[in-house]
């Protein structure tokens, strides 16, 4: 073998070795994160799969009960259905309204007026505010005797209800707070979408005589469908997993009128010590959310326009 051939071999081997070294370095850099994910996310997932098949109470040794927890959920726990119904009510009430209101705010915040940044910040602020603080403020807002809301209604001659302790009003009250708190997120997403729409399209349509409503229907909304699709998925997932608001404002009451699925899961795990049962509930909600997301994904072909 000539020196030239050897050199060529070395030259061929060298990039591979350096690539391997680079890979090792990369892996080393992300190792702490990967380790964290494995220890604090993946391991608990595996444990919860096992726990869902046991009667573990968090204190005594777990006893394997097979699919009993799942069976009990569907056949022996009427509250399970109640909480699913309440969660559906909350989700259906929250998701479309927050997206619609968010869209309206995004249109307003897209106007070229002075001080618009202040409005954007104001609308987005509740989204990044601690839910406990929000809960306390709204708690006093909803107070039946000396609350702000009933005070305002009283001026108009309306006798306001006991918002958070009335079976019929508790959910609308919670949905209102949720929309108020969460509307900043769809607003920001849709605002970004609006600002991504080429100005030329609207200008051309205006020249062609299209009205503002027509431009909205034929240009703005179709070009925002990817954002609407993204929001419909993310808002559904977050609404279906609502917990903090319920925990702070109503504790699931009155009766079980505002006991949503995740709050009931939490009660089972930490109040009643039914960790196994709660784990089964957690996996069931995962499957439910995954199925709904899959359906949404399949349906997107019919209405989402990726221009």
């Amino acid at each position: 073998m000539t020196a030239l051939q050897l050199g060529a071999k070395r030259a061929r081997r060298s990039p591979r070795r350096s690539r391997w070294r680079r890979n090792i370095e990369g892996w080393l850099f992300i190792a702490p994160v990967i380790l964290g994910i494995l220890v604090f996310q993946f391991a608990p997932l595996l444990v919860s799969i096992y726990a869902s098949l046991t009667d573990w109470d968090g204190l005594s040794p777990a006893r394997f009960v097979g699919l009993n927890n799942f069976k009990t959920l569907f056949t022996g726990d009427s509250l399970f259905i109640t909480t699913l119904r309440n969660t559906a009510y909350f989700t259906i009430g929250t998701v479309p309204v927050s997206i619609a209101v968010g869209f309206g705010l995004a249109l307003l915040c897209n106007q070229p007026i002075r001080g618009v940044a202040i409005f954007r910040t104001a609308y987005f602020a509740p989204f990044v505010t601690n839910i406990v603080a929000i809960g306390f403020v709204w708690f006093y807002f909803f107070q039946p005797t000396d609350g702000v809301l009933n005070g305002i209604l009283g001026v108009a001659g309306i006798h306001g209800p006991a918002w958070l302790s009335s079976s019929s009003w508790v959910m609308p009250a919670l949905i209102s707070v949720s929309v108020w708190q969460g509307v900043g997120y769809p607003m920001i997403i849709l605002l970004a979408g609006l600002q991504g729409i080429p100005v030329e399209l609207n200008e051309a349509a205006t020249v062609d005589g299209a009205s503002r409503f027509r431009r909205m229907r034929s240009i703005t909304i179709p070009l925002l469908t990817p954002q609407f699709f993204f929001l419909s998925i993310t808002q559904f997932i977050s609404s279906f997993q609502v917990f903090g608001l319920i925990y702070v404002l109503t504790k699931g009451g009155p009766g079980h009128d505002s006991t949503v699925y995740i709050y009931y899961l939490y009660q089972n795990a930490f109040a009643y010590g039914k960790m196994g049962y709660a784990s089964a509930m957690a996996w069931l909600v995962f499957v439910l959310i995954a199925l709904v997301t899959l359906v949404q994904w399949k349906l997107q072909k019919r209405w989402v326009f990726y221009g």
Partner: protein
Amino acid sequence: MSASLSRRRLLAGAGALAGSAILPACGKSAQSKNTITLLNDANTDGTPLGAAIKAFEKQSGKKVEVQPAPSDYDTKMRTVLASPAPPDVMRVNDDYVRGLSDDNVLLDLRSYIKRDHINAADYASKAFNFPTQPDGRHTAWVIGYSPRVIYYNVDWFKSAGVALPPGTWTDEHWTWDDFLDAAKKLTKGTNKWGALVYLDTGYEQTFSINNGSATGIFSANGKKFTLADPKGVEAVEWATDLTTKYQVQPPWSVLQGVNVDTTFFSQQKVAMLFDTFQVTPYFRENVKNFTWDIAPPPGKVNQDTESSMIVYAIPKKSKNPDGAWELLNFLAGPDGGAVLAKGKEFTPVNNKAGETVKADAKSPAHLGLFAEAVHHMTQPNQTTNTLGARDLYRPPNGALADVYGGKKSPSEVLNTLRPKINKVLSESPNLMNQLGN
């Protein structure tokens, strides 16, 4: 010497950093025997318990590390109990002592009691024996108890021309009828009420026992829901009628808030309030514009009151059970009790210390009633699943919300609940019991 940052050095540094973050988590904490960790449901700074802990530290030379968990304490408590390193001693809700004892996670204190020659006669007997389990284990330690009484606005009584309640533990001129009569006279319009009884859940046991129920909420063996018996139903009905029939008590819907009891009383929205000893410090500190006092609960067949137990327990997995016991023994003893008594928040379990709960220049004038409550004490019988039972009948989730709201009658609700609650009580919470409504 210039140290340029090479890639190798950066990697080594990053590795070392990651390692240093992970390694301590793997190591065993070497806790000194001179340190006792205490999980408590409130911050102890500036409280009677905090003062008693300081006195213990001074006397013993040991250090007590308090871990306050003021929010959702019971959840935190269960979580740390499940961990391999729970605190050495922790506050336990008196309703959970039986359940946790059945779970076998609390240390049996009998060997300590025997070793230190603890004489039960030195303590309020019902409180002292409260943590004794059916199999004889003594799984927790009561350091005090908080009796419930009627707090009343003296000025309001005088301005309405109503005779003041008794200052001793007697039901002479202080029966349920007398109470109702006073409440009617004290009520002004639609937003100043004569009484508030049903907000404090201790009314269930207190008023059912005083109505002649033999066991109150639960049967002696903790397996039956006896609040649904006629005497219990009558008691709930009487407390609810104050609102629905006589309008002398705030409607349930306006009581949904934080610290409504103390707020309504101190803002002079209610003239009489049924509440525990533990609200006394708040009133002593914050009520400046009227004179207030306390009276025993009104009597009928009996005149007892439910006392909430101030209970602490040592987890079985405690790293320093000896230190924990030393602390508890001090808190329940005459020295610790004397410090606790000064706080006027609950009655120390030690008889000598309990006797020092006396009135001073501040309200209430009849503070001694709290000490006398030792002779009129009742607590709900312990069950293995008190929480599960309560979730079914107590608001916010329980069915009594409909009763307090005037939608359903107590007998209808309680009798419907009876089989469900009996079922929950018959099963240990760590089995596959269901709370389906």
